[in-house]
C-alpha cells in the first residue's frame, strides 16, 4: 500500500501539472480526469474506499461531464484546433499505471496505510447521525446552485431572444411604415382632386 500511495501521488502531481500547463482546453480537462483518478487511488491507499468510489463517480463522472458539456456548448474547439495528434498518449499511460496499481491493491488485499480501513458503513452512520444537519444543508446548497445555474444560463438566452425579436419587430415596423406613407399621400391627393371637382 505504501508503494501504491507514492506512485499514485506522483501520477497526481504530474497530471495536475499537465492540467495547468496545457494550452488546449480539452487536453487540460483530459489530464484533470487523470488527476482525479489518481487522487481516488490515493484515497483507496489511505483506507477510504467509499470516498475513492465517490471521487470517481461524482468528480470524474458528473463534474467532468459538466465541464465537457460547457466546452461543447461554448464551442471552444473552434478556437483552439488540435495541434498535438498524440494527445491521448500521456493520459493513457498515466491511467494505465493507476489501473495496474488498483488491480494489484485489490488482488493482494494489503493493509491500509492509516492502519484501519474506514468503510462505507461507518461513514454512513456518521453522515446520518451527528452530521444529518450538514447533509440537509448540502442538499439545499445543491438545489440553490441548480436553480441559480439555470437562471443565469437561461437569462442569457432570454435576453438574446428578446434582442432578436426586438430587431425583427423594428424591421417589420420599418417595412410597414415605408409603403404606408405613399398610400397616405395618394389618398390625400385623391381627396384633394375630389374637392377640386
Amino acid at each position: 500500500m505504501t508503494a501504491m500511495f507514492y506512485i499514485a501521488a506522483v501520477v497526481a502531481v504530474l497530471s495536475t501539472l499537465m492540467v495547468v500547463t496545457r494550452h488546449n482546453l480539452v487536453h487540460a480537462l483530459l489530464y484533470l480526469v487523470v488527476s482525479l483518478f489518481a487522487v481516488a487511488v490515493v484515497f483507496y491507499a489511505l483506507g477510504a474506499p467509499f470516498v475513492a468510489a465517490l471521487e470517481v463517480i461524482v468528480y470524474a463522472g458528473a463534474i467532468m461531464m459538466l465541464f465537457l458539456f460547457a466546452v461543447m456548448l461554448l464551442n471552444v474547439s473552434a478556437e483552439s484546433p488540435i495541434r498535438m495528434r498524440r494527445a491521448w498518449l500521456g493520459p493513457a499511460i498515466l491511467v494505465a499505471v493507476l489501473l495496474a496499481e488498483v488491480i494489484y491493491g485489490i488482488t493482494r488485499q494489503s493493509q491500509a496505510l492509516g492502519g484501519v480501513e474506514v468503510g462505507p458503513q461507518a461513514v454512513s452512520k456518521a453522515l446520518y447521525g451527528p452530521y444529518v444537519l450538514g447533509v440537509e444543508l448540502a442538499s439545499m446548497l445543491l438545489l440553490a446552485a441548480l436553480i441559480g445555474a439555470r437562471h443565469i444560463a437561461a437569462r442569457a438566452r432570454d435576453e438574446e431572444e428578446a434582442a432578436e425579436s426586438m430587431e425583427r419587430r423594428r424591421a417589420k415596423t420599418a417595412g410597414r411604415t415605408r409603403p404606408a406613407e405613399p398610400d397616405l399621400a395618394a389618398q390625400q391627393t385623391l381627396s384633394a382632386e375630389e374637392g377640386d371637382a
Partner: protein
Amino acid sequence: MASVSLDHALVLAAILFAIGFAGLLTRRNLIVMLACIEIMLNAAGLAFVAAGARWGQADGQVMFLFVLAMAAAEVAVGLALAIRFRQSLKSLDIDDADEMKG
C-alpha cells in the same frame, strides 16, 4: 509508519493545492481557472481524508462529502457564468472583462 504517511499525504495535498493556485494565478482562460479551483478543493478534501484516516475516524470522509457537494454547486454556477461571459463578450479570456460597463 502511520504518522509518516499522514505527513506525506498532507504534503501531497499541499503540492496539489499549490499547483492549482499557481494555475489560477497564471492562466487566463475561464474554464481552466474553474478547473484549477476544482484541483484546490480536491486537495483540501484530500487533507480531510488523510487526517480522518490517520485517526481511524469517519469524520474526515464526511467532510470530504461536504466539500464534494460544494464543488459541484460551485462548478455548476461557475460554468453557467462562463456561458454568459462567452455570450456577452465573445471570448473566454478574463482579461477581456477588465472594463465595467454598467
